[in-house]
């Protein structure tokens, strides 16, 4: 029978018949995928959403069959594309942003901060040591002050300033309180960027993060020493504490997050280096979202609170309350269930 008529062009090759029987389902799947991809998943009714996994599995099995029986490159490419897109929707799906945020504040943030406790301790120790060193060196010899503190940032608050001028910077405030909110907002955006920097630089084996932390700490120590030398130690403490407990905690956390990334790369433990880097990187990113929230709080405290509250007790009280709040929030017990 394999003669002349053996391979006459039949109206439909067998694999094309296979295709025409299933085409309608693929088309339905494609429509659902396109709706979901255009971010209008809410347009789908329940029935369509329930069909998605079923249609996906049938397309997947059609793909397996087509690979073994069909020599239609376009068909196989189409099915492969369809299955990949459906796969990413079904298995790559995320919880919606709102749900994620709720979970983040309820436990995700706390869990992430607890996860980097070791680095937090190290960076906090480093920060304290740096601040102490800055303080001791600058109070012993004025030239150290200029080594630690940028003249622009000090804005006249250096060892040559008079007691009166220094006192004025602590309590003067702005006589009218216009522009406080702008001040607070620019502090927030600036501090957030600095902390993101301290975090992201941790990628380079953590060294740049440590440098950023140390330079901030020694600057702070030198800054305080100027005020203490003029007998304004209590005042400067309150001036810093009101927002500093939040802001410095945030900076320490971002440095710790940077170190955590570096630790994931350098000491992978039982995981592969890539897996360990990714795990630590994601955990550190959670901490950083939180740090941005902390910087917003610190910006508000610095912009509004410090300008409106001129009383030392009030400033210390708020600073201490914030510190207790953060410590309680981060190191409380959280369940392991979502």
């Amino acid at each position, binding site marked *: 029978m*394999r*003669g*002349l008529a053996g*391979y*006459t*062009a*039949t*109206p*439909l*090759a067998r*694999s*094309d018949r296979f295709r*025409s029987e299933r085409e309608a389902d693929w*088309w339905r799947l494609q429509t659902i995928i396109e709706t979901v*991809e*255009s*971010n209008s998943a809410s347009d789908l009714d329940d029935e369509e959403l329930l069909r998605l996994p079923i249609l996906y*599995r049938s397309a*997947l099995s059609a*793909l397996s069959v087509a690979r073994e*029986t069909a*020599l*239609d*490159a*376009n*068909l196989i*490419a*189409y099915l*492969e594309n369809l299955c990949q*897109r459906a*796969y*990413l929707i079904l*298995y*790559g*799906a995320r*919880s919606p*942003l709102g749900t994620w945020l709720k979970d983040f504040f309820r436990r995700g943030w706390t869990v992430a901060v607890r996860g980097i406790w070791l680095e937090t301790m190290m960076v906090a120790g480093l920060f304290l040591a740096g601040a102490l060193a800055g303080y001791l060196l600058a109070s012993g010899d004025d030239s150290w002050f200029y080594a630690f503190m940028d003249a622009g940032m000090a804005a006249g608050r250096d060892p040559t300033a008079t007691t009166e001028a220094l006192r004025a910077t602590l309590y003067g405030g702005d006589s009218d309180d*216009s522009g406080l*909110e*702008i001040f607070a*907002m620019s502090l*927030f*955006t600036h501090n*957030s*960027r600095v902390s*993101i*920097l301290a975090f*992201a630089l941790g*990628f380079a084996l953590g060294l740049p993060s440590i440098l950023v932390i140390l330079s901030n700490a020694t600057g702070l120590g030198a800054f305080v020493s100027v005020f203490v030398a003029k007998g304004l130690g209590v005042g400067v403490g309150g001036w810093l504490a009101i927002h500093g407990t939040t802001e410095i905690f945030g900076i320490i956390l971002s440095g710790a997050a940077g170190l955590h990334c570096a630790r*994931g790369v350098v000491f992978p433990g039982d995981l592969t280096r*890539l897996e360990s*880097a*990714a795990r*630590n*990187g*994601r955990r550190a*990113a*959670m901490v*950083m979202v939180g740090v*941005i929230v902390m910087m917003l709080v610190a910006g508000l405290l610095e912009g509004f609170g410090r300008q409106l509250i001129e009383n030392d007790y009030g400033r210390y009280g708020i600073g201490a309350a914030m510190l207790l709040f953060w410590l309680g929030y981060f190191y409380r017990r959280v369940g392991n269930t979502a």
Partner: protein
Amino acid sequence: MTTAMFPWERVPTLERTLVTPEGVPLTIRLATAGTRTSAFILDLVFMGVILILMTIILTILGFAAGSEFVLRMLFILWLLGAFILRIFYFTLFELRTRAATPGKRKNNIRVAARNGGRLTADAIVARNLFREIEVFLPLAFLSTALSEGTLSTATGFAGLGWTSIMLFFPLFNRDRLRVGDFLAGTWVIEQPQQELGFALSARDAGDQYDFTEEELAIYGERELMTLEYVLRRSEPDEEATVAAAIRTKMGREPAHDDRAFLNAYYAALRTRLESGMRFGRRRASKDSDEVRPDHGPLMR
């Protein structure tokens, strides 16, 4: 196949296989560095446009309002908007179902988790926070240093080195990972919109063509795919060339109805090759012999 002696001679393959939980392997194509650069530049343009539009709208509102309080609120809105735009533009878009910024969408690429699992929000946040040191830090550094003229040779070179490491990092690993991708467990893959073409064998082929076994045995699967490609493009000149080549090979007379001839030959060749396939006989191309299934001892 030639083997590469030196690393730069190796052509990296950007195809990866993902096995679904159902056990079916899917091919995933990683986005090339070029596509990603183009997507990123497009996104920068979009960010610029959004910033300018925001500024214009807020300025107009400010003039309309007049009161100082409203003006200050608008300025805060602007500061906050610029901050969110810079830090969260990429994150907010990638958090949506399509996992792509407008620039990525235009280039048909998207972000996916490297392990094939869920692309979590923290991974997206992580990969985008690192943009700050990959792109914005060098940019800010260069622009301040240049405008203030404080760029010493040493810091200039250090900055250049840093920028280059960040910039070319994707080219130094197989998976085209940015620093951010590396630390977030993500990668960027191609996701074109593939459409289903015609069922080619259903096309009108006419009945006037019959092919002998010998005529169908000239070609293999690769030639069939090429023929499919030609038919789907359906450009008359191309079809004429291909039809002439096939006819010559068969020793047939030249004729005019190229389209019908090619349709008929395609359908016949495909039917033949596919029926061979069902019995385990494959022929990759005209240059290779037919591979028959190796039956086990029981069948022999």
